[in-house]
């Protein structure tokens, strides 16, 4: 490398800088983005699907798509997370649509006889996952604009400003959607208790 050329080093490089390097073909920059955000996307994917196996698939595919699209996408603000969350959300919905009809039909089949099994020992864990699945179903029933902000800000814990920039709406609009969505989710989840 030529002397005097300024070099940006890994830990301090912003997402936007890494993304621009990745767009120019820098694999190490994209790998750094992966290492930085894999855990957040994986947890987000779990909250979108209610399944750790599906979360791994979804996370993996989110980064594959990000790599393929890196030259076509410009980051809003400084974080890659809003866009990664959006890709994960789109993938989750594509997968869910195909499964929904089958599940509806399966519910018509007779219940099997009740037998004690290992599930009793992990009841607490399943209760938590069951709760998550109820929330996921309730989120899916929200109007599109509310669902988007819930996925980004409530499930994904993104700052409101980032979601507003990604969705190209005012922050006050995001806050309004969140407020309405919270009320609707509480009502929906109350009904299921």
């Amino acid at each position, binding site marked *: 490398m030529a002397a005097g050329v300024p070099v940006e080093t890994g830990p301090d490089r912003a997402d936007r800088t890494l993304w621009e390097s990745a767009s120019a073909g820098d*694999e190490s920059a*994209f*790998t750094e983005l*992966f*290492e930085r955000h*894999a*855990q957040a996307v*994986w*947890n987000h994917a*779990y*909250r979108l699907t*209610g*399944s750790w*196996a*599906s979360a*791994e*698939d979804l*996370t*993996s*595919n989110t*980064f*594959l798509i990000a*790599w*393929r699209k890196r*030259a*076509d*996408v*410009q980051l809003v603000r400084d974080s890659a997370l809003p866009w990664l969350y959006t890709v994960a959300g789109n993938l989750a919905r*594509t*997968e869910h649509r*195909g*499964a929904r*009809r*089958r*599940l509806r*039909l*399966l519910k018509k*089949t*007779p*219940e*099997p*006889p009740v*037998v004690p*099994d290992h*599930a009793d020992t992990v009841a607490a864990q*399943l209760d*938590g*996952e*069951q*709760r*998550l*699945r109820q*929330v996921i179903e309730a989120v899916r029933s929200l109007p599109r604009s509310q669902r988007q902000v819930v996925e980004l800000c*409530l*499930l994904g*814990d993104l700052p409101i400003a980032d979601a507003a920039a990604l969705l190209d709406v005012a922050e006050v609009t995001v806050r309004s959607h969140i407020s309405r969505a*919270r009320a609707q*989710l*509480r009502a929906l*989840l109350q009904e299921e208790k």
Partner: protein
Amino acid sequence: MTDFGLPPRRALPEEVRDRMRATLQEEMRQTRRGGRWVFVAAAAVVLLVVGAVSVTQLIKPSGAPAAGGTSPASGIDRCWSAVEAAGKTSEVPARTEWAVSYTEARGDDSVFAVQAAGVPFFCETTLTSVTVSDPHAALAYAPDGKTALVLYTASGLAAGITDPAAYQAMDLYTGDLGATMSTVATTGQFSAFTGLDPAKTQLSSWGRQDATSEKAGEYVGQAGLLPPPPPPLVTLADRRAADRRSPAGVALDECLAKAPEKLTNANAYSPGVLLQDGRYQVVLGKAGLDAVACTSQPDPAKPENTLYRLYSNTFTGQSVPVRRLSVQPIGIDDPPLAFVGIVPDDTTKLAADVGVGQPVYADVAGGTFGMWLPAGAKPPAGDGMAWVKSENAAGTPSFNGWIPFM
């Protein structure tokens, strides 16, 4: 979201991170090679006929390299090999002048936008074939006088040229089938995997100014209806097509031919499991990373007829080696339900817990598994997941975990 009582976030296990990182690195490696394709040894090569296109046959001895080196040609070299095999090297610029403007891939289908001696042309490679556009053919332009299709292949790849000063992105669309956006390269070349059948569709296009935005207000010009492109210079089947002489292969052949959904590289899919219950049938196929399930059933409206449907694998990652393919129930009254999917190719046995109190064994063949669900089947843990364990002939497990049941 804690006010909704959700489980807390977890630390990402290192083995999960490793698997996902490996998948990503493999994708990067394939991108470096100029596209994604899966090696299929060239033993004998099959004639592929696409419309009235000029077709060439290439025969190579078993195990021989496909082109001049120590390994089969890949990427753009495969395009040149096809031109050589067709005896048409005099009709394209010399290989040393070829410069790839860009390359894109969808699954195992890749396109190379090439510029040579000021002439733009395209090459498409699939699992089994190569198509090269004719660099010197006369193009028919859209009403804007700037935009023309150069290639529109049977796999649905549409590629063309336009004025890069006028448009930085191009939307291709037809009727109600939606639009596909493509970035326009500085050479004016653009391309998109439309998934449409060129025999049944004619594309139109809108130019955009900003390739990174999807806002409707940024359209800058309608190129209009795109006349069909000239015939390609070369269409060559240079890889072995799948052997479909088995009963499952015959069923897959028929189903793929009759299903209304279009499948890229249909002849590359090897047959997997075949499930039959009277006139209800599910047959699986696998080609490289891709898998499909093709179903047939009596037409409820006209029972003497048969309905065919094709389902493709929506996940292309490899982090979980066993995965289910989502297939809709077939039939109306009490239809049989299929639980099908893919497994590592060396898998010989798969046991599943589908909530009936004992393991159920699926049929396994060609890297796929399948079973008709028994009466009373349901997700065993009530969370929409089924437990499966797969193993190879030596009894070594390749997967032991949960996959989506529906």
